């Protein structure tokens, strides 16, 4: 009987079924897209981590013999064991252990170490990799949020969708309360009614769920390919083609079915609980439980405003989804647009504008020391190179006595204010970081000329500046002179062994820095930067050490030169024997913009999806309530309300629904932007110049347009209906 009844209802009421189909389709699409996207992001993280840190799960370091290795290899849960040749040295052998079941790593590694006669300290686990498989240890205090974030977001998405789409089911089911009242009165149990409604929901949802899931996968494929295309040139990024796993399909199908089932079950349960009399008497009318006043609408739009306001209040529950999703989508969109604009403005100020005259092409020569780099001259002689500086960075320490500290620095508190993380008190003096910037000799000589000192290659130039930590404006940092400028030499110490030192002449104390794409004193306000020529470095590196792995090349090109061509030329030169990453300023800006726009597109898509849900809900309401609105409007007409006055009610309702997002969004966005502008020391006029007024306005107009369209169609249906028929409805109940 139910099958016949449901099938006949579905066949004969296609318009009311369409909302369920849309709701199920949207849920399936969103959840499938989310699951596939998260799987791809997760897979990328895993692969990147494996490439950067290795794919080992457990690691043992120590004196490990071949017999020990065999012992470990034969351990029940161990899949394989490899000796890490790169990390093994005279201090011990490093063995990477792989398990058949990764979950055993924390329990079995200590046992394996014991078996091999190694202390517990010799064991380490790959916490970051394991956390990506949701394998966590209490001994790892780090906040590894990626996997939990993906899970939590999916759960939140499911809950939000339930909140959003259960209304589509509720509206369609409520339209038949009267019929179910009749069924109930002739003996249908609540369970039977609930089962009938759920059965109907699933009949209608099956195809949309399948289609939505497939489309979600295809959209994800497009998004991943789009990201790969947009970020091809981003240094250090892996290009990972779209991947999918059958388990993800199972997971997203399960999530969708569960979401749709709960969404259908909530209203079905309510319907099942109604007594026959409640159901038969139900007129689907807009009712207020208690008296409410729409003062503002009444004041502005008169009695029509009051009627519209009351109707909206009476519909509040069913309109909640529409209101929430419209407000949330507009809020997220506006917030995101403003936030990204602020980020772009901020990045332009702190990076692109600040360094635009400092570099055109930047090369990172991987794992190469500056003294081993032999192409400096060839590089500087390349056509189009205005200036090319080759440099490497190294860490060192330096002792600063109280007498050496300038009066200016003492006036702002001296080194007592410094964080102990960077500065330590030693024998009445201060041990500070003294980062070295080792420059090729030609560039160092040019730097000497730049600051007006006699060009020499036998000493260091000290950047005599300390940042005033009391000034929070990081865009325009206030600095004071660090040292009194009377020291003829500087004693640099090995950062690992501070008793090993070397004394070199000071050529100058400078306030100007060489033209390099570097920032100094960003974290450690009291670092004492030393610029040294390669000639000096060759003499002291044995004592000081601490050189960073890579060497950098900064190139300023002549005006007429195409940076992409220059990039190719440099790449050609370095291809013989060096592994290099090259970027050019314009391309970097373009890549950066592309990255921002890509992110904006993804979030924008999410906002549009939310807006679609909201607008879909309004369509559901306007159509779903046509019958009850017919009666409501027939009443207005019966007491003499003119068609224009009726249209005014619809207009006010549409205006309130579409206007609410802007009324809520604008104050929140403005306050947030003002707070951010103050925090980031951005000139408000610069932001206003770049502010995303047009996209926000377009988004808002789109919302208004669609809400107006929904109401226009709904109003046309209601106003076009016969007054006499609508009034006659009453007498049929």
């Amino acid at each position, binding site marked *: 009987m139910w099958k016949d009844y449901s099938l006949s209802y579905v066949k004969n009421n296609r318009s009311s079924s369409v909302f369920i189909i849309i709701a199920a389709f949207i849920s399936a699409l969103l959840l499938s897209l989310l699951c596939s996207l998260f799987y791809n992001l997760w897979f990328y993280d895993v692969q990147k981590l494996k490439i950067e840190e290795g794919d080992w799960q457990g690691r043992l370091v120590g004196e490990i013999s071949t017999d020990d290795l065999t012992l470990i290899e034969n351990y029940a849960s161990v899949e394989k064991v490899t000796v890490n040749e790169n990390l093994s040295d005279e201090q011990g052998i490093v063995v990477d252990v792989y398990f058949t079941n990764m979950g055993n790593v924390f329990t079995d590694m200590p046992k394996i170490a014991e078996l091999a006669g190694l202390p517990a300290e010799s064991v380490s686990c790959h916490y970051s990799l394991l956390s990506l498989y949701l394998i966590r240890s209490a001994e790892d205090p780090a906040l590894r949020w990626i996997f939990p974030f993906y899970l939590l977001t999916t759960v939140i998405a499911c809950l939000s969708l339930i909140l959003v789409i259960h209304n589509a089911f509720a509206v369609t089911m409520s339209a038949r309360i009267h019929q179910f009242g009749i069924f109930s009165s002739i003996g249908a149990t609540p369970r039977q009614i609930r089962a009938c409604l759920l059965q109907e929901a699933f009949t209608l949802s099956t195809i949309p769920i399948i289609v939505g899931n497939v489309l979600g996968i295809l959209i994800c494929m497009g998004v991943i390919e789009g990201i790969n295309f947009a970020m091809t040139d981003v240094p250090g990024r892996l290009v990972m083609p779209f991947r999918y796993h059958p388990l993800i399909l199972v997971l997203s199908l399960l999530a969708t079915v569960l979401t749709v089932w709960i969404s259908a079950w909530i209203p079905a349960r309510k319907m099942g609980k109604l007594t026959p009399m409640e159901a038969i008497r139900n007129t689907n*009318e*807009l*009712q*207020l439980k*208690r*008296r409410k006043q729409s003062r503002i609408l009444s004041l502005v739009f*008169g*009695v029509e405003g*009051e*009627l519209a306001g*009351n*109707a909206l*209040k*009476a519909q509040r529950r069913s309109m909640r989804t529409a209101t929430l999703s419209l407000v949330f989508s507009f809020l997220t969109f506006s917030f995101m647009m403003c936030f990204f604009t602020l980020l772009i403005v901020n990045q332009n100020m702190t990076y692109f504008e600040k360094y635009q005259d400092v570099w055109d092409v930047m090369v990172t020569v991987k794992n190469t020391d500056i003294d081993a780099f032999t192409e400096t001259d060839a590089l500087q002689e390349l056509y189009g190179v205005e200036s090319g500086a080759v440099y490497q960075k190294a860490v060192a320490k330096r002792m600063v006595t109280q007498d050496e500290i300038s009066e200016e620095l003492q006036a702002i508190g001296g080194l007592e204010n410094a964080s102990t993380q960077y500065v330590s008190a030693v024998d009445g003096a201060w041990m500070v970081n003294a980062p070295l910037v080792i420059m090729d000799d030609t560039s160092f000589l040019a730097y000497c000329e730049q600051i007006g000192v006699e060009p020499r290659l036998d000493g260091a130039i000290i950047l005599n500046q300390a940042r005033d930590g009391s000034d929070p404006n990081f865009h325009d940092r206030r600095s004071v002179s660090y040292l009194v400028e009377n020291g003829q030499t500087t004693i640099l110490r090995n950062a690992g062994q501070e008793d090993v030192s070397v004394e070199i002449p000071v050529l100058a104390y400078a306030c100007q820095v060489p033209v390099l794409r570097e920032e100094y004193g960003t974290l450690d306000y009291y670092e004492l930067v030393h610029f040294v020529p390669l000639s000096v470095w060759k003499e002291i590196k044995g004592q000081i050490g601490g050189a960073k792995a890579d060497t950098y090349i900064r190139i300023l090109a002549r005006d007429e030169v195409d940076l992409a061509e220059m990039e190719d030329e440099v790449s050609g030169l370095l291809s013989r024997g060096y592994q290099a990453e090259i970027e050019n300023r314009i391309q970097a800006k373009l890549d950066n913009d592309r990255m921002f726009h890509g992110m904006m597109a993804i979030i924008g898509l999410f906002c549009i999806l939310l807006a679609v849900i909201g607008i879909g809900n309004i369509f559901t309401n306007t159509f779903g309530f046509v019958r009850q609105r017919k009666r*409501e409007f*027939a*009443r*207005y*007409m*019966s*007491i*003499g*309300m*003119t*068609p*224009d*006055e009726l249209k005014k009610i619809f207009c006010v309702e549409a205006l309130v629904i579409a206007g609410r997002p802007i009324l809520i969004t604008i104050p929140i966005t403005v306050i947030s932007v003002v707070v951010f502008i103050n925090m980031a020391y951005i000139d408000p006029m610069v932001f206003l110049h770049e502010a995303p007024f047009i996209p926000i306005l377009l988004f808002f107009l789109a919302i208004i347009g669609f809400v107006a369209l929904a109401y226009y169609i709904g109003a046309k249906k209601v106003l076009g209906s*016969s*007054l*006499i028929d609508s*009034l006659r409805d*009453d*007498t049929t*109940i």
Partner: protein
Amino acid sequence: MEILKCEGIKKVYGSGANQVKALNGIDLVVNKGEFVAIIGASGSGKSTLLHILGNVDKPTEGKVVVGETDISASNKTQAALFRRRKVGLIYQFYNLIPTLTVRKNILMPLLLDKKKPNQEFFDQIVKSLGIADKLESLPNQLSGGQQQRAAIARSLIYRPALLLADEPTGNLDQKNSKEIIDMLKLSNHNLEQTIVFITHDEKIALEADRIITIADGRIINDERRR
């Protein structure tokens, strides 16, 4: 003095084989101050006639003149203004606006015209109808009888010369039915309003000055009792 005149009213629903003649040539004159009951079996056309008299529906053929206005020729806006100002309509199921208080419901026709109510008259109506203490309630908080009283108050607020009631007691018990008819009679007497009402109940019809019987869309009997 004639307040209502119908000439050859016909109302046809549907077309072809599905055509239904709800009214088939009604000629009717009602004088000012008359208290008229229309009776007839279900489907006889009495509600259709009342809707046409109230400008809720349009005749397929014929002419309806209320006062000096031919309402059968009015457009939607003119029809709405006519219902608002010239007639009072009372329905079996009250047709109160569920989201407005009783006070607002009663004042609705005036509010639509942005007119201020005559407080004295308003008080007089609600007092005589016995709903003075229910003015701030919502319709669903009232009993059926109280809702019908509120609907009558609304129909009276513009002091229309003609009051049309479609089975005003159809949904009420005997006691409430009697009270509603008494109130209509009082209104007819005190305000000199012309009242035309439909009823199934012969006992209630006997309270009228004139009883018109309709069958198959025609007037088959028109009895003046007083």
